[in-house]
């Protein structure tokens, strides 16, 4: 049996599992505890101090300017400086644009945001590189610039990218049914403009890469990257060498959240460029300030949302305009915008929908991947609308949602039929029960009538998130598994470990399940281009999709060993069990042999014990011009109920409790999944209450450090309850798993803001809810506090 679909079916329909679904501890834990787990800078520390050149980046100080010349003579005179590299020195193509070829690795001709990289200094140590960087004179001709996306949309006299003729980088649309007809049937209509802000990833490890030149013009790069094979393609393009000569290794990564998906290939390419041009190892690490200035952010968004519902509490139509502040480069803007567009309805049935999306260039840091990927802001708008409509209809928010919720047989706003794996309704009901929703709504209403100073609220929000790439964009899973003669197993995957644990827990679990061997037999070689291209570690795909290749490869080996064992034991192959390092006859477990013995036999009898696992996700047709058709293979769903207390004297919001529920197919490791939910909930609290990037009038980020970009601490967290799991298995996921990593981030802000709006009895259309903006909302303060 080598057909991956059959393999997937077999495992999904298994009656019970040995390790899948259990709280297995991660294999990397001890190494991380004792500082032995190697992060990128650790390779520099251990092997390269004194050998590697140190790279310092020269950043632009203008939002928009022509580069008339770069004078780095003086920089070269600094002792210890080996080379200064600018766009002219790039041997291959100076083009790193992800979706649109609009972005150079090193600025060429003009710069488009403050923080854009203009030159690389390579010196024998950091201090010399740093000194030299201050000696680089960039002759700018400042250009008029545009920071506000609405202004940028209107103006054609200031163009971030002249050759494109407009600041609108990309547009999307959905046209389903007829919204005039839909709104005419509506009993209530709600219309709002929502404003969501940028978010900085604030991973504790900044970006870094160590590039080592090797023989035959090859280069190896160890770097903070979420998709080694993408890094390989970019490095290959920049250097003008075949991809086969570029090896990328993602060691342990100190947090990614999407940021190292975008910046990873670029930091690798910059280090590789220096190594390639100088013939010496080269090391680049971003200071925190550089990291915040340079790397892409969660997009700021303006969303105009009109929606209507009829007397029966059924949604009739939505009319949505989404404007993303894309910043200087498109990067993933089209994909982020498509995701927002196709999820604009929320997880509800909407018969008539019109959605228009605009990705708009501005002279600011550009947008990129960040947990939720365009979906956080649109779910914020959609979920606020649901509460407002429910209020107007006099319906309970949970009840109103249940009347419209997606279920098996529903059609999405892209008119995609959801034929299976839609567990959201059940999840919502269970979470509402868990949280004692109805009772608390009443209780808090009474509390708020009696209480002057403190107001309490409870709010619900749902997130849905298409798994895999959107539309017909190809997606696949690929891995390689081999069994050594001593029975130990090596797994090669391109999926990286950045905290989420897919390679170090779930991949190991998948192999342990498939081969019935103890976890200590298994080593996962992760995050390397030496492994097959497994796709990126993003889009919550590391386990559910990334794990498919691993499962298929391991199952192929299991099948071969099953045949062998059946011959040796002379029993039916269908009655062979693999468990606890033994292979035996199910009817009489005494009849069997150890895994090691069986492996030795296989080697002796010429049976191949290495296999690749590959699966190309089946997709359907999608019409980009009207946004109709097959959007995603399946969707994960999450429900969050949040309880808050607002101090109306100080404007302080305390999130008291959060109740999560997840419908993400099979949960392979519940404890790891809890960790993903808790981490995302707290990131969402940060986004909703305190995190914000402040820009000055020249587009510079003002708060480029953790003193003034504040993120939650242990004191800022609520009580987060154990999640409800509704295992609505997905037919093409490993064991039926969908995706988890991003989920709790998506409705997080909406759940908190819905609770605050309930507590205060006001409409809220923006984030973050700083104390001063809360005081403004309730009329205590006046002015410009919420900006």
């Amino acid at each position: 049996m080598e057909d991956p679909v059959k393999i997937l079916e077999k495992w999904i329909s298994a009656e019970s599992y040995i390790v899948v679904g259990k709280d297995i501890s991660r294999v990397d834990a001890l190494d991380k505890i004792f500082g032995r787990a190697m992060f990128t800078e650790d390779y520099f520390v251990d092997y390269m101090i004194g050998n590697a050149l140190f790279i310092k980046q020269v950043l632009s100080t203008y939002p928009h300017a022509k580069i008339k010349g770069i004078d780095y003579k003086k920089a070269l005179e600094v002792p210890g400086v080996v080379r200064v590299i600018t766009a002219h020195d790039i041997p291959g193509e100076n083009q790193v644009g992800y979706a649109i070829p609009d972005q150079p690795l090193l600025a060429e001709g003009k710069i488009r945001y403050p923080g854009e990289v203009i030159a690389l200094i390579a010196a024998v140590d950091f201090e010399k590189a740093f000194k030299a960087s201050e000696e680089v004179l960039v002759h700018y001709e400042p250009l008029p610039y545009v920071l506000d996306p609405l202004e940028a949309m209107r103006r054609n006299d200031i163009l971030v990218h002249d050759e494109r003729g407009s600041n609108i980088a990309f547009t999307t649309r959905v046209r389903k049914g007829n919204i005039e007809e839909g709104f005419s049937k509506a009993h209530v209509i709600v219309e709002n403009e929502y404003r969501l802000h940028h978010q900085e990833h604030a991973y504790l490890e900044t970006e870094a890469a160590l590039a080592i030149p090797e023989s035959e013009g090859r280069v190896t790069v160890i770097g903070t990257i979420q998709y080694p094979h993408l890094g390989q393609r970019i490095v290959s393009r920049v250097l003008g060498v075949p991809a086969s000569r570029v090896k990328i290794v993602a060691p342990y990564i100190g947090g990614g959240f999407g940021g190292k998906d975008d910046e990873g290939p670029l930091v690798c390419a910059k280090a590789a460029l220096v190594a390639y041009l100088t013939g010496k190892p080269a090391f680049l690490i971003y200071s925190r300030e550089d990291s915040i200035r340079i790397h892409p952010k969660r997009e700021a968004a303006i969303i105009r949302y009109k929606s209507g519902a009829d007397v029966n509490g059924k949604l009739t139509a939505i009319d949505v305009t989404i404007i993303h502040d894309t910043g200087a480069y498109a990067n993933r803007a089209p994909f982020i915008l498509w995701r927002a567009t196709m999820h604009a309805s929320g997880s509800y049935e909407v018969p008539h929908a019109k959605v228009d999306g605009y990705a708009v260039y501005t002279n600011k840091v550009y947008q990129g991947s960040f947990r939720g990927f365009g979906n956080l802001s649109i779910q914020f708008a959609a979920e606020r609308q649901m509460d407002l409509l429910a209020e107007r209809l006099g319906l309970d928010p949970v009840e109103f949602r249940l009347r419209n919720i997606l279920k098996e047989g529903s059609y999405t706003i892209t008119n995609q039929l959801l034929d299976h794996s839609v567990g959201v309704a059940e999840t919502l009901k269970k979470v509402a029960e868990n949280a004692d929703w109805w009772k608390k709504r009443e209780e808090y209403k009474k509390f708020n009538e009696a209480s002057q100073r403190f107001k309490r609220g409870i709010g619900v929000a749902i997130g849905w998130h298409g798994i895999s790439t959107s539309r017909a964009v190809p997606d696949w899973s690929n891995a390689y598994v081999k069994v050594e003669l001593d029975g130990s197993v090596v797994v090669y995957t391109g999926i990286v470990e950045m905290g989420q644990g897919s390679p170090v827990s779930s991949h190991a679990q998948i192999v342990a399940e498939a081969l019935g061997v103890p976890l200590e037999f298994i080593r996962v070689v992760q995050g390397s281009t030496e492994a097959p291209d497994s796709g990126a570690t993003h889009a919550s795909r590391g386990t559910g999709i990334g794990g498919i290749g691993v499962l298929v490869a391991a199952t192929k080996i299991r099948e071969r060993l099953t045949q062998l064992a059946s011959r040796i034991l002379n029993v039916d192959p269908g009655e062979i069990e693999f468990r606890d390092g033994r292979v035996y006859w199910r009817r009489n477990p005494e009849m069997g042999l150890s895994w090691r013995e069986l492996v030795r036999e296989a080697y002796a009898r010429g049976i191949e014990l290495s296999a690749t696992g590959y699966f190309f996700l089946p997709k359907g047709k999608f019409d980009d011009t009207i946004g109709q058709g097959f959007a995603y293979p399946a969707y994960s769903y999450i429900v969050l109920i949040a309880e808050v207390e607002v101090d109306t004297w100080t404007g302080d919001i305390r999130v008291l409790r959060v109740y999560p529920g997840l419908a993400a197919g099979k949960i392979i490791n519940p404890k790891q999944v809890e960790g993903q939910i808790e981490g995302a909930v707290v990131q969402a609290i940060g986004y909703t209450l305190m995190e914000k990037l402040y820009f000055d009038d020249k587009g510079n980020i003002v708060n480029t450090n953790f003193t003034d970009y504040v993120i939650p601490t242990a004191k800022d967290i609520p009580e987060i309850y154990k999640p409800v799991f509704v295992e609505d298995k997905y037919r093409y996921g490993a064991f039926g798993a969908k995706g988890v990593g991003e989920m709790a981030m998506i409705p997080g802000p909406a759940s908190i803001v819905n609770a605050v709006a309930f507590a205060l009895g006001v409409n809220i259309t923006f984030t973050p809810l700083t104390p001063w903006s809360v005081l403004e909302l309730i009329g205590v303060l006046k002015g410009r506090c919420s900006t």
Partner: protein
Amino acid sequence: MMYVIPEDIEFIVPVDLREALELINKLNNVKALAGGTDLVVDLKTGRFKPKYVVYIGGLKELRYIRDNNGSLHIGAVTTIQEILDSKIIAEKAPLLRAATEKFAYWQIRNTATIGGNLCNASPAADTAPPLLVYEAIIKAESVRGSRLIPIREFFKGPRQTALERDELVTEIIVPYKDLENSGYSYFKVGRRRGYDISLVAVACVVKVEGGVISDVRLALNSVAPIPVRAMNVEKTLIGKKPSLEIIEESSKLVVYDISPISDVRAPIEYRQYMAKLLTREALLEALKKTGVM
């Protein structure tokens, strides 16, 4: 590694206070380094570029907490955590303790010193409001001798103090005798519940004798170029019978004591509003502790 302290700065580690004083007398453009939690960052980011840095944080003779005649004497390089952990402080100067409790986080408190916090002269200095309330006296020493500077004369502007170029702060004297049997309170707000730079903090002490307010002292940080006493509020309260009305009215006057700005941390409107609110709350809380209200 990612930030460079200029190499032309000379670092000197004197063996005792005398040598330290001689050094700063002799040299020009000196910064004294105690814990360094502010200064090292400032050296790294280039906010300060002194010619010399004299490290006094290791001088044991400047690290003590003593109780003497109704005053606490705290050596300048005593760490914030030592103050927080001190039984004498808890007993005699509980308001100072309350402020150190909300001072950054444990690791920083283990390094940062009280002298450093004052000499850094940040408008947001956490130890300043309680010390202003205690009317602490700052002992400055130089080769010329020593002098005592009332804390209200110590801060001259953001990052500016009354110290002469050859002087070092060696001791902070906290008179507590007058404030025994009084109520105290401390409020600090930041951008999160966890450690943060103060957006507004208020320290308060109230003494009630014979049914009237005999002494009241209020100080705030982060609402002016320097930490300030709220004299306008205090004046209206002295000699008055404590009541909700008088507290409400007097706390509004704090706006005449402060001059906040808008920055990346908070807007002026919020700081003004919170200064009033926290002044009122601080007064109420302190009065509650006296048992009067």
